[in-house]
């Protein structure tokens, strides 16, 4: 047996990644779901008498420079982090699919044109493009979502294009074509469903990468606008006080990393189980 196969056997199985990923992601999603109905305190209520309280029973994550309860703020911040990443990936997924499948199916100049556009978007360091888009059209949650969706669309377009190029050579597509099925119908009903297994890992990893970008933009003050906050904004607010109140950095950072790491673990699990199934 070759050493690559051996290493596959000895490497942690997909389920280890799934369990770890679901636990980490679950913590953040649970915080989000609970925050919809209840937070310990009003996340934006200031309290001059309760500034910089260390983590204790009443305030498990402590309080910030305005006496706001950090646990409540972290819980409500998870809402924006999750919302932006999910909505942004949805846009990227839709745009990428619409551009990628025809590119792969028709080939030729359609393909060249679409790929040239996609490649030139990918030429910009992603965060730069998103920052500029938000700068030009103004910083708001909606604009951040659209900017990130556009920046990430070429990644999905690539996955769709490559997948389509493989699938369209299969006999059942040729058969459909010979039967006179219209290209639009072939692409939506016969090709797209078969791309799902390839799009799934890309979507999960896209969620994680988009969160990295969004939190960076919010950290720079070009994402979610105050008084609302995502994890990135909490961290940028906390930076000035990290000597007096390190917990202000640690807890939001922890939740942010839990979310991203959870997604990475799940995508790793998908990768392992798909590669095993494939071979």
């Amino acid at each position: 047996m070759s050493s690559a196969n051996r290493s596959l056997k000895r490497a942690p199985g997909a389920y280890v990644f799934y369990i770890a990923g679901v636990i980490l992601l679950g913590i953040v999603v649970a915080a989000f779901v609970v925050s919809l109905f209840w937070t310990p305190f009003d996340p934006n209520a200031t309290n001059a008498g309760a500034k910089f309280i260390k983590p204790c029973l009443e305030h498990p994550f402590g309080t910030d420079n305005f006496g706001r309860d950090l646990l409540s703020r972290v819980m409500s911040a998870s809402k924006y982090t999750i919302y932006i990443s999910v909505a942004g990936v949805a846009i990227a997924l839709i745009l990428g699919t619409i551009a990628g499948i025809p590119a792969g199916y028709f080939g030729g100049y359609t393909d060249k044109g679409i790929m040239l556009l996609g490649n030139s978007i990918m030429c910009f360091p992603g965060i730069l493009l998103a920052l500029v888009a938000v700068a030009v059209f103004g910083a708001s949650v909606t604009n951040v979502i659209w900017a990130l969706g556009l920046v990430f669309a070429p990644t999905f377009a690539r996955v769709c294009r490559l997948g389509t190029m493989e699938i369209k050579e299969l006999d059942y597509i040729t058969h459909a074509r010979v039967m006179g099925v219209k290209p639009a119908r072939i692409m939506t009903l016969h090709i797209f469903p078969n791309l799902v297994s390839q799009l799934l890992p890309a979507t999960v990893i896209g969620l994680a990468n988009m969160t990295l970008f969004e939190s960076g933009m919010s950290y720079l003050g070009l994402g979610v606008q105050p008084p609302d906050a995502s994890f990135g904004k909490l961290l940028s607010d906390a930076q000035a006080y990290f000597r007096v109140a390190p917990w202000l950095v640690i807890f939001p950072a922890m939740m942010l990393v839990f979310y991203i790491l959870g997604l990475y673990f799940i995508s790793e699990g998908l990768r392992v189980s798909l590669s095993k199934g494939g071979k």
Partner: protein
Amino acid sequence: MQGKAGYFVGKLIELIVTLLLVSLLVFAAFSIIPGDTARVMLGPDASQAQVDLLRTQLGLDKPLVVRYFSWLLGILTFNPGTSYAYNMNVGTLIAQRLPVTLGMSAIAMLMVILISYPLAVLSARKPGRLGDQICSVIGHVLFAIPPYVASLLLIMLASSVFSLLTVGTYVTPAEDFAGYVGCLLLPSFAVALPKIAMSFKFLRSSIIEQRASDYVRTSKSHGLSDLKILVRHVLPNSNVSSITIISIILSDILGGSLIVEQVFNLPGLGRLLLSAISRRDFPLLSGIVFYLAFITVLLYFLSDIAAAISDPRIRLK
């Protein structure tokens, strides 16, 4: 066209077309901005005559096509116009800030290569062993920490545990080169961390894959030592994938350092970019965006060339 030269010429044409398209995208993005630039600059109190005068001075009254070509000419001759906010040549402003961003990216890239290569080689020797598994788990975690969060944590660590660092002081390379490198070390490390993990992961799996191939078994049966097989056969074959990865990593590092500069208070392109954004200084903004994209495209081009040189099979595709 055939052979090496044909491949390189093709790539060169691709580079030029991409750059033109990038310039078109940048120009288009800044032309569809809502609001009259001259009006924004002068404020609501200015008279229409003043606004019109400024529009003429800025060339905003000319047709779009003329403006595009004059902008393109300017940007290609490193004279992309005057910044509204600083009242200085955009090229000069960018050149002043470039040493920070490029220096950080270069140091970070060195760190990525120097740390991930040896670790990947060691890890891939005995895949599945404890050391390999520990490296992989740490790699996953590092991968998930955004560079600016890593910066914050590193600053906290450095100031509380080692109390050695003066964060936010920047020394120009002309003053004191060692000091310049010194003040960029920590930020570069923060940018490099997730990329070390990424490069480690790809390199490791590439080496494992190569080691399982037939030619390694043949070399082994010919009595070559493990080290020789590694240096002569496995690493050169892993190079191609690592060159591609490195170009992706470099572009990420460039983007990452824009944010990390802000955490460490370094006067680099990131800071210039943010100030251009907040003051709606569009000549400066479009200059920064174009030149950063230019650097990225050039990196991709160079990595394609490097990959083609190290693996002739790519040229034949």
